C-alpha cells in the first residue's frame, strides 16, 4: 500500500460571525473584500456574497449607508420589548445589512426612507434559544 500524507485540515473562514459581532462592539463594521470581483461581503461568509470566490480579505466598512426600509415591531417575540424599529440599510460599500434604528417609534415616517444613516452602536440580545448573546448594529439618522 502506498504511504500517504495525513489529510490536511484546511480552514477557510477569514472572518466569522463572532469576529463580526466583536467588531461591532468595538465600533467597527467589518466585512470582506473579494480579491476577484473587488466587491464587499458583509456580514462575513465563507465565500464572496457576489461571485462565490474564496479569495477574500478582511476589510472595515465606513458604517454609513442609506435607509432602505423599516418597520415598527409592535407584537414582539417572547423576550423582546416592543415597540422598536427594525431596518435594512444599504451600506456605502454595497451590501444591505439589518439592524435597529434609534428613532422615536411614533414619529417614524416614510419621509425618512433614503436618508443617510450611520452605525452608532449595538443592540444585544440573549435568550435560552439564541446560542449565546448576539448583537446587531443600531443606526442613527444623519441630519
Amino acid at each position: 500500500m502506498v504511504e500517504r500524507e495525513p489529510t490536511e485540515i484546511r480552514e477557510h473562514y477569514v472572518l466569522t460571525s463572532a469576529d463580526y459581532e466583536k467588531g461591532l462592539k468595538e465600533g467597527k463594521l467589518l466585512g470582506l473584500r473579494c480579491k476577484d470581483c473587488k466587491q464587499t461581503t458583509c456580514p462575513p461568509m465563507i465565500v464572496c456574497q457576489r461571485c462565490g470566490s474564496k479569495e477574500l480579505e478582511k476589510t472595515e466598512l465606513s458604517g454609513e449607508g442609506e435607509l432602505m426600509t423599516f418597520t415598527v415591531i409592535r407584537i414582539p417575540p417572547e423576550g423582546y420589548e416592543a415597540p422598536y424599529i427594525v431596518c435594512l440599510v444599504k451600506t456605502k460599500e454595497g451590501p444591505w445589512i439589518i439592524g435597529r434604528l434609534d428613532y422615536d417609534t411614533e414619529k417614524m415616517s416614510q419621509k425618512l426612507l433614503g436618508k443617510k444613516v450611520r452605525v452608532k452602536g449595538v443592540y444585544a440580545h440573549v435568550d435560552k434559544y439564541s446560542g449565546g448573546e448576539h448583537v446587531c448594529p443600531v443606526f442613527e439618522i444623519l441630519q
Partner: protein
Amino acid sequence: MRDVAIIGMGHTKFGKAEKTQIELFAEAAMQAMEDAGVDRKQIEALFMGSVLPMFEEGQGMTSAYSVSELGLGSIPSTRFEGACASSTIALRDAYMWVGSGQYDIVLAGGTERALIMGTPFATRTFAMGGHAATEGPAGLTFPGVFAMTAVLYSRFYDIPLEKLREKMAYVSIKNHKHGALNPLAQWYQKYGNLKVEEVLNSRMIADPLTLLDCCPFSDGAAAVVICAADIARRYTDEPVYILGTGQGSGGALARLEDFTKPASRISSARMAFKSAGLSPKDIDVLELHDCFTSAEIIALECMGFFDWGEAADATEDGQTDLGGKIPTNMSGGLIGKGHPIGATGASQACMIVEQMRGAAPKGNQVDPVPEIGMTDTLGGDFGTLGHIILGRSRRSK
C-alpha cells in the same frame, strides 16, 4: 421519471385543536387513505412536514410516531423542515421517490400545533425561520419582514404607502371572503364581508401591517396519497397528476437586497413551469402563500402572473378573484383558512385537488372545473420556496 398522481386527500379543520399533532396528522392521513381506497398495508413510505413540534409538545420525530399511530408497520418515514414550506418539500420528495420507481404508493403531508404556544412564544419560535445570528438580535418577526416588503414595494413602484395599504386590504377581503365559505377554514363563517377600513383600522402589528393583513396562528394537518400514475385509476376516477415541481433556497433577508423579487421564489416557480412544460397563462387556479397581504402581491409577480409592480392594482381590480385572470386562494388562503405551518403546503395541494373534483364550496369553486392548478409555498423570509403544478390530465400518455 414516470408520471405520478394524487389519489386521495385528507384535511382537518384548521383552528384550535385538542388533539396532539401526531393525532392531527393521523386524522388527515386516515381520511386520505380512505378517500383513495388504499389499505394501510399498501403504503410504502411517509414524507411529512412538521416545523416546531419540539417547542409545541416536546415532541421530535413526528414522522416516525405518525407511522406507528397509523399502524403502518415499520415503513420508512422522514420529517421535512423548511419552515412554512415544509410539507411542500415533503410532497415534492414523495413525488420524486414515486417518480423514480422506488415506491408505488406513499403518504405525504404535514402537521402543526402552533396555538398551544401562545402568541409571544409562537412569535419567538416562528422567528427561528429567519437568520438567527443577524435577524435575531434585531428582533425581526415575520409580520416585520412583510411590513418592510410593503414599504419597499411602495417605494420602488412609487405607490404612496397609504394607497398601497388600501390595495393590500383587497387581498385580506378576498381571502377572508373565501375562507368564510370553507368549512375546513379557521375563519369559517367569520370575517366574510370585510371592508377596506376594517382592515386598515384593525390593530397595528408591524407598521404598516394590521392584524387583518396577517394570517393567524393555527393547528391542523393535511395529507395526500401519492401513487404511480399507471395504477392511479385502480383507486379513483379522478386522479390529479403532478405535472411539475420546483424548489429554491435563499439566504438572510439583507442578502436578498430587493426582497420584493426574491431569487429563490423566481427560480423555484420557473423550475416548476419548465418541468411541467407550462407557463403562467396555463394555470386556471392558484393557491399561493399569503401569510400577509403584501406577500400575496409579490408572489403573484415573482411567479409571472403579473408584471413587476402590477399585482397590487390587479388585486384591487378583482383579477385574482373568481372570474378574474387568475383565481387565487379560493380556499381562503393562509389568511382565511389558517396557517398550521407544517401542514400548509399539503393543504394547498388538497385545495387544488378539491377544485379539480368540482367539490369546492359554492362561491369558491372555479367554473368550469379547472384543468391545471398550482401551489406556491414560502418558508422563512424566502429561505425555502416550493411550487407544485397539478393537472387533471397526464403529462404523457
